């Protein structure tokens, strides 16, 4: 059936079921993921189907359990470690940065680390400073890691399945606002290779680059822009490492204008890096400076009004588009 709709979390679950069925080396550990089925219900049913050997609850030992995942991956397994919030991954940074990311190079390519850290980030309605961060830039900065941030159910499924079939450590960062979102997920095999951006909406006047929860928000902005007669193209890189530079440059060559929308704080962010790529490689395609709409340089406050003010909203995107369109051409 071509019109099958699944929730983001159901699509992730389907990927886990399918890959665990196919490969006995895949196992998953995390806090409350077994009997409880995970805080976001992604792992519901896995314990019944695959048993306590391959689906295990852990104590609250992030550094230890991430390290165990990395060690198991070096030893040839395909472990998934679920970390409740990306904020908590900070407790295991040594294992991510100094172990997982380095092992392939340190062994001259003889060792590989097919380790997946599944987690979720972003603001989510008053969960405050230690449960709301968008930390992808930290991992983006570390050579040797893959950084995957799906925005739709189909992307979530296809990218997770691919993650379980490749050989490098993956930071698979979901978004707490997306789990209940529904979207079309085709029946049957769905594999999405890393490094392939997806055009979520075609347009001709401006390229909007967004990932994770900023994709639905940017699409809403694009809808509204359309009513103003502005045709916005929305490009979702889907994986930040590897980054589909070609798709970005191609879209910018078509629209000649670009706005990058990032939930994470502005300073040292991935948007800045993408912007620098565009100005280095597509300077003469641009009719206006690349604009970045990003989070404030702040921890996320609890107060909901302040929380909203901390991350890009639809109107911020619209304002940025208007600004790049009103700049005179060279």
């Amino acid at each position, binding site marked *: 059936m071509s019109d099958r709709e699944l929730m983001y979390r159901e699509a992730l679950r389907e990927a886990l079921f399918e890959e665990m069925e196919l490969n006995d080396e895949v196992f998953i550990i995390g806090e409350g993921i077994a009997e409880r089925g995970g805080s976001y219900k992604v792992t519901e049913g896995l314990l019944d189907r695959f048993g306590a050997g391959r689906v295990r609850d852990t104590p609250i030992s992030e550094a230890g359990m991430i390290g165990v995942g990395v060690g198991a991956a070096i030893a040839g397994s395909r472990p998934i470690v679920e970390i409740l919030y990306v904020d908590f991954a900070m407790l295991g940074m040594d294992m991510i940065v100094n172990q997982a990311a380095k092992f392939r190079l340190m062994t*001259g390519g003889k060792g590989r680390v097919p380790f997946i850290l599944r987690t979720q980030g972003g603001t989510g309605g008053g969960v405050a400073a230690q449960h709301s961060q968008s930390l992808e830039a930290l991992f983006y900065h570390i050579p040797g890691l893959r950084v995957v941030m799906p925005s739709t159910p189909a992307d979530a499924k296809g990218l997770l399945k691919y993650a379980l079939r490749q050989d490098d450590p993956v930071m698979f960062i979901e978004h707490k606002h997306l789990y209940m979102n529904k979207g079309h997920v085709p029946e049957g095999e769905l594999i999405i290779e890393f490094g392939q951006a997806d055009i979520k909406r075609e347009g001709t006047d401006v390229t909007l680059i967004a990932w994770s929860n900023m994709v639905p928000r940017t699409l809403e902005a694009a809808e509204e822009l359309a009513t103003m007669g502005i045709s916005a193209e929305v490009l979702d890189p889907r994986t930040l490492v590897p980054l589909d530079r070609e798709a970005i440059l191609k879209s910018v060559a078509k629209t000649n204008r670009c706005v990058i929308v990032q939930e994470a704080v502005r300073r040292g962010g991935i948007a800045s890096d993408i912007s620098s790529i565009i100005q280095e490689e597509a300077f003469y395609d641009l009719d206006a400076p690349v604009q970045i709409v990003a989070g404030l340089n702040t921890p996320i406050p609890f107060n909901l009004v302040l929380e909203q003010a901390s991350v890009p909203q639809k109107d911020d995107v619209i304002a940025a588009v208007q600004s790049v369109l009103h700049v005179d051409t060279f």
Partner: protein
Amino acid sequence: MAKTARPNTPSKELLEKLFTTAFRIRNFESEGIKLYRQGLVRGYFHPYLGQEGIATGACAALEDRDYIASTHRGHGHCIAQGAEVGGMVAELLQKETGYCKGYGGSMHIADISRNNLGANGIVGASTPLGVGAAMASQVRGSDAVTVAFSTDGASNNGTFLESLNLAAIWNLNFILIVENNQYAVSTKLEEATRETELYKRGEAIGVESHRIDGNDPLLVYETVADAVKKCRAGLGPILIEAVTFRHSGHHVNDPGKYMPEEKLAYYKERDPVDRARDNFISMGKAAASEVEAIEADIKAEFEAAVDAAKVAGEVTVEDFQEFVADY
């Protein structure tokens, strides 16, 4: 502390293996330091001199399917797990023929093909990584055991408790060997913890734990062999604190002046390589000529490794760029 009665009379074959391994490590480190002094080895070099008995005894108790995870002081573990000296010398000399093609060096030396998860530049990392390998074995239904070599210094790192506890709740085939050489770089153990008998940390979380003389290779072998047997019977994990002492400072350029001379003399009296040799002669009835032949072979093997490494090529910048192009 020490066990008294030997469970079995050790075979000559075992005693020869223990002596050969211990001497190979001793020779590798002594000669390696000379290469370092000549400027042929760059970076860091943490000698295992004085601690050879631990890797030697432990790895002799393992089968091919078993794993080890090592430390920054990892040459001895790598050799004891069966790595060839040629690939190790080449790695120290940053050659393409090295185990890691010159990408890793002393602190990251690893012979992946022999289930060695590698030396590690982060103190404490071997424990969680080793528990991971033990978990991989359990999930795939293998009875393989993982030995993680760790240190007194690492015992104050959070992952020590976190990962040993994971091994315990999951009954993993995991043996944690805490090489207690009594110093974390230059900080005395007594300054780093109130309870210096580190095996008690295992007992505190329900893990069978032992404290033994790490300078007795045969005792290390027997203790680890027993632990391996228990693990394969589903009684793991097990912690073994092996007390030892470095013969020198933390790394080649640390004279180790903070190490008291009397203490150093005490441990040199109980030198693990001498004890392995003595056991081979007394218990194994080995002739002096046998011992001499083994030592001569090991020395020649090292010299040949140096000769080969000197003329071997290095990874080119172009190869390197291609290797990391997808990073």
